[in-house]
Every structure is written in structure tokens, then in C-alpha cells.
């Protein structure tokens, strides 16, 4: 087992045993699910909507390079600087260069999981720059110096009491348990930053090729402020987010809001197409769009896995995942947790480092049913498992399955295997659940089922005689 896998086992076991933590997450997810179902019911035909959304995104992927060319052309025409970053490190370098060239020091950021994926904050801090997260949840986890707990709700694991303590310790303000007051504290702190920041940074939800626009969805208005107050604006977007037409957003935006946050539509939906134009009175002086590849174009060519690029990062699969519900977001130790992450992390990054996540799933399929773009997540997990076990099989595991095929394929072996098991289990209670129990991985927490002396095959033989 590699270190990552070991750490996952330990962290997962710790969180699973923490009933308070599970309670917080469970309550939040239940509340979300109720709201989501109400919003889904507002659709005339939710299943048809999923079908269409999947098609739109698939079309975007099938035609990705051409659409990106159109997008780039249109954005450039309005004075936007567009870059293509093959890797995360390249994207970080581009951001750093923009900061350097402009003598910038601080950068106010709105929510962007893509920036988490490339570890942009660390890269900036290492060079002495100050990235400031302006999304409330991100602001909180940044103060706690921890990664987001969830791709949509970064601070869902914290109670308002914990947030109050955090603000008291880090911002020196009076403790309060009133959520609104807590929000106001964050806001007061952030407003100052917006005005002083040299650069504003946003993530993005979609890019519309037809019109050359970047679509950003948010609920707090922080993204708009990040985009409009500083002189320079940067957007980082994964290349798979491109869709062909403007009209596609009329379906994708409400769907994203519905399963993402149980809303009919998010509070602010903005389209950015370039820096301030000569006839405009506001907007940034410079606009930079970084198109991030980081393994995506390779995945787009993989006939099995390309569908994972349809993902709109709504978090819906995470919210219904019973594993996530039990182990929480941090145990995954991955930018993208939950089902989407368990498929994507090994594919986008390193199979051997992240393969354990593909196995950490009971394959219940709840994620697939709730995915707005119909990604067959459990089947892709099975494919990941196959890839992992084919490229680097575990010696004893492979041996065990080889032995099992022998046991299953030879009726005599199967018959006597069962008999011997039956005899063996007579002595099992002596060690059941202890460390010397060979079945400890089951019996430590569960009673073992009993083998019967007469199996179905025995009963059947007698019956059919």
C-alpha cells in the first residue's frame, strides 16, 4: 500500500468514528437534498434535461479544439490575452508573469477549483505574492490553512461556532454566533482587499465559443468584484468547459444551480468577453484568460474516459455519495473528492498515487443517477480498477483470485472447500474479530455469516433425484 492509500485508510477510519462530524455533514447534505429535489421537480422533464445537457457537453468535447480556436479568436479580438497552459506548472508561471510584469503584490480570487488543482496559491505564496480568497467558504478555509472540504461548499464541515472562534483568533473580532454577522465580518475584511488588490482572479463554469465569452456563476457577488475593481483580471478555465452556443447556457446554468446548490438559478451569472472597451466606463484594463489542459486533451482522446470531461463540477455526485457522507471531504486528500474525484484523480494525475480512491467505493451508483450530464461514474471506477490491477497487480490479490477461479471452476474443489470451511468455522469463535483472525477485516466490526453443512448444491441434488 502506498503512503497516500495508507493515509486515506487512517483518515477515513478516524472520521468514520467521529459521530459529531458525520452528523454535521449528514444534516447539511439532507437539507441540500430536500431543496434539490424541489428544484428538480420544477423542471418539466428532468431526465430529458440531463440527456440534453450530456449531449451539449459531449458536443463541446467532440469539437473541442475547433471551439477553443473560435473562442480564442473572439476573445483576442476584444483585446483579451489568451494563453494555453499544457500543465498546471505552466499555468502558475503565466499567472506569476502577469503579476511580475505589472508590479502586482496582491491578487483577490473568487472561487476556482481549477486553481486548487494546480496549487496556484502555494505557487504564488512561494514567490512572495498574496492571494486572497474572496468566496466566503474559501475565505474561511484559507484562514484555517486547509484545502476546501467540498468543491461547491468549501466550509460545509464547520459550524458557526467554529467560524466565530476562527474569526476571533485570526481577525481579532468579537465572537458572534449569528451567521449574518459572521458574513458581515468577512465582507468588511474583504472589501478592503478588493480596493487594494492589483489583480482580480476568477475561475469559470463555461466558455461560449460562439460569442467568445467566459461564463461565471456565483452567489455572493465576490467574483464580480474581483473582476471589476482591480486593474487586471485573470480567468483560469479548463479546456473542457467550452460549449458551442450561447443558448446552451439556458439549460446548463439552471441545471448547475439546481443540483449544485438547490437553486433555480444562481444569484449572479456573468459573461466576460474582454477588458474595458473604449466606449465602456468600467471593467479591467487588461483581461487574461488561461486555458488549462493539464491532461485533459489526452483524456479527450480516450474513448472510455472522455465522458468524464463532461463534468460541470456541480458536486451533485459528491452530495449523494454514501462514502463521502461517512469519510468527509478532507480524507480523500485530493483536489476533487467523492465520485468525480475517484474517477478523475487517477486519470488526470497519477494512477498509482490515487488508485485506492477508485477502490474506495461500494459501486452503489447513486452518483450516476444524480449526475446532470449523465457520467457513468461507477462504470468508470470499474475501468480504473481494471487499469490499476492490470498495470500493477497486487501479488497476493492476484494469487487469491487465481486460487478462487480454481475453487469455483472445479466442482470437487468447491464442494470440499465448503466442507473444510464448515469444519474450520467450528474453531472460529475462539479468535473471531481478534488480530489473529484471518477474516479480521470483516469480523472486527461485523459478525461472520455461517457456512451451512448442506449447501444448496447438496439440497438440490437430493431434491432433483
Amino acid at each position: 500500500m502506498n503512503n497516500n492509500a495508507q493515509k486515506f485508510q487512517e483518515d477515513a477510519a478516524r472520521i468514520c468514528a467521529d459521530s459529531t462530524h458525520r452528523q454535521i455533514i449528514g444534516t447539511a447534505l439532507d437539507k441540500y437534498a430536500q431543496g434539490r429535489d424541489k428544484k428538480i421537480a420544477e423542471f418539466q422533464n428532468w431526465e430529458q434535461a440531463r440527456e440534453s445537457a450530456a449531449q451539449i457537453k459531449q458536443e463541446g468535447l467532440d469539437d473541442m479544439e475547433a471551439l477553443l480556436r473560435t473562442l480564442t479568436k473572439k476573445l483576442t479580438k476584444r483585446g483579451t490575452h489568451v494563453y494555453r497552459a499544457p500543465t498546471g506548472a505552466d499555468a502558475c508561471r503565466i499567472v506569476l508573469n502577469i503579476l511580475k510584469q505589472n508590479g502586482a503584490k496582491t491578487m483577490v480570487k473568487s472561487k476556482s477549483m481549477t486553481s486548487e488543482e494546480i496549487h496556484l496559491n502555494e505557487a504564488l505564496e512561494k514567490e512572495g505574492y498574496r492571494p486572497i480568497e474572496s468566496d466566503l467558504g474559501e475565505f474561511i478555509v484559507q484562514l484555517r490553512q486547509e484545502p476546501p472540504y467540498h468543491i461547491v461548499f468549501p466550509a460545509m464541515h464547520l459550524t458557526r461556532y467554529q467560524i466565530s472562534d476562527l474569526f476571533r483568533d485570526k481577525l481579532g473580532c468579537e465572537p458572534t454566533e449569528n451567521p449574518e454577522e459572521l458574513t458581515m465580518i468577512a465582507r468588511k475584511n474583504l472589501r478592503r482587499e478588493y480596493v487594494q488588490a492589483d489583480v482580480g482572479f476568477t475561475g469559470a463554469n463555461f466558455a461560449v465559443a460562439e460569442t467568445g465569452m467566459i461564463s461565471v456563476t456565483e452567489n455572493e457577488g465576490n467574483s464580480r468584484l474581483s473582476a471589476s475593481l482591480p486593474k487586471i483580471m485573470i480567468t483560469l478555465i479548463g479546456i473542457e468547459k467550452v460549449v458551442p452556443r450561447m443558448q446552451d447556457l439556458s439549460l446548463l446554468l439552471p441545471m448547475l444551480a439546481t443540483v449544485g446548490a438547490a437553486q433555480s438559478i444562481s444569484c449572479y451569472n456573468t459573461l466576460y468577453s474582454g477588458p474595458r472597451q473604449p466606449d465602456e466606463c468600467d471593467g479591467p484594463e487588461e483581461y487574461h484568460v488561461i486555458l488549462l489542459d493539464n491532461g485533459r486533451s489526452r483524456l479527450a482522446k480516450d474513448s472510455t474516459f472522455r465522458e468524464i470531461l463532461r463534468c460541470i463540477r456541480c458536486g451533485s455526485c459528491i452530495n449523494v455519495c454514501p462514502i463521502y457522507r461517512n469519510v468527509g471531504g478532507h480524507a480523500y486528500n485530493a483536489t476533487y473528492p467523492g465520485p468525480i474525484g475517484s474517477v478523475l484523480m487517477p486519470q488526470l494525475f497519477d494512477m498509482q498515487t490515487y488508485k485506492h480512491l477508485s477502490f474506495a467505493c461500494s459501486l452503489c451508483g447513486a452518483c450516476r443517477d444524480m449526475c446532470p450530464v449523465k457520467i457513468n461514474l461507477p462504470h468508470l471506477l470499474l475501468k480504473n480498477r481494471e487499469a490499476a490491477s492490470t498495470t500493477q497487480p497486487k501479488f497476493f490479490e492476484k494469487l487469491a483470485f487465481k486460487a478462487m477461479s480454481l475453487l469455483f471452476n472445479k466442482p470437487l474443489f468447491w464442494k470440499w472447500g465448503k466442507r473444510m470451511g464448515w469444519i474450520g468455522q467450528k474453531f472460529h469463535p475462539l479468535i473471531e474479530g481478534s488480530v489473529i483472525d484471518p477474516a479480521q477485516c470483516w469480523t472486527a466490526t461485523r459478525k461472520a455469516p455461517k457456512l451451512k453443512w448442506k449447501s444448496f448444491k447438496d439440497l438440490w441434488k437430493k431434491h432433483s433425484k
Partner: protein
Amino acid sequence: MKITLFAPCFMDAMFPDVAMNAVKIFESLGHQVDAPEELACCGQPAFNTGYWDEARNVASKVVERLCDVEALVLPSGSCTAMIHKFYPELFKGTSLEEKANRLAAHTWEFSDFLVTRLGVTDLGASFPAKVTFHDGCHGLRELGIHDQPRALLSKVRGLTLIEMERVQCCGFGGTFSAKFPSISSSMGESKVAMVMKTGADYVVSNDSSCLMHFQGVADKQRKLIKSIHLIDLLVRHE
């Protein structure tokens, strides 16, 4: 009709009565039953763990033996999903592809077969108790089986069905339960709590593996829940 019943490995060894009761039900409806003696397992454990060669090793025997039977029925949603949904994938591009597809097309889960294929819902059973029903995930989401077992339960005399607050996996997941015991048991615990919250006397399922899992969790924690396979319930006359 000639029905071939395949009792999967763990059922053969640990829950033989469930499969025997399935035989009785089919025979009482006037069908002829066959049970292949040389087959033990569908290959799902190896398949789910990524060892597809080893899975094919076991599964090819199943395909060869059963591809031409009239109807194959399994008293487990999970193993049915393996044959119906995953065999075509497992054998794609191999010499058994066509046979695997043929087999998949006439493979049925027990409750689905009774209700959809045979059109039977009332087996004359009576079971005066409050029960709740656990949907095995593979049956529910790979095969879309939800209404069929409920249709059968609705005809059982004296039975009251109380649904759980949420449809959720019990945490078994085959080799997952042994690879990640803490997560799996923690999921099992939530399931036990959900079952107990309904106040039902019994929890019923069409998958023995799920029942085995959360009954095991409950027994370990000395929580009193009683589980029963749908098939066992359908032969009760109380």
C-alpha cells in the same frame, strides 16, 4: 417453462434455503427448474477488483453452460447485474462476445422475473408483520428493479411495508467491505439505524449479501434487527 436457477457462491454456501425456496416457488407455479451443478460463481469478486482475466476465467464457464437456456434466474440483484450488465462488457472483443450477449438477454433477477416475465404477484403468502425493504444497489440502479419486489410484498397477507427515510447503500460492496472495513461498517451502521427508525419487525431485501452485511453489523453491536430474504418471506404462511 424451463427455468434455470443459479444460486451464487455465497448463497450456495451460506443461504441455501433461499435458493431452495425459489425452486419451490417456481415448481408450485408449474415450471420446471434446473440448477447447474458445475457452476459456483459468476466472477463478480474478481471483476469488481479489476482482475478481469481471472473474472473471465470463471465467467466463461457460466457463459458456455448457460447461453442457450430458456431463462436464467438469480436470487440476487448483484449477480444478475454482473451477468446482464457486465458480461457483455467483460467479453467484448473476445470469442465469447456473442454468447455473452445472448446470455445477458435472458438473465433475470428473481422478483423481476416473477413480476415482469411471469406476471405473477400473488403467491398466496401471509406474513403478519411490519417490514421495511432494502433495495440492493445493483438491482436498483443497474437493473432498475424497484417496484417488482414491492408488488410482491403488497400481496402478502397481513404485511405492512414501511419505507426507510432514504434509499441508501448498506456499505457491503463486495471486496470493498474487506478493503475498507471502517468505511463499509460505518455505512452499515447508518443502515441499521435507518432500519431501526422505521420500527419494522423485519428488514427484507432481494439481495442476501446486503442482508448478511448489515445483519452482521447489527449482531456485532447487539442491535436487534431481523433480516429476511424476500424469497424466504414469500413462502411463509403464518
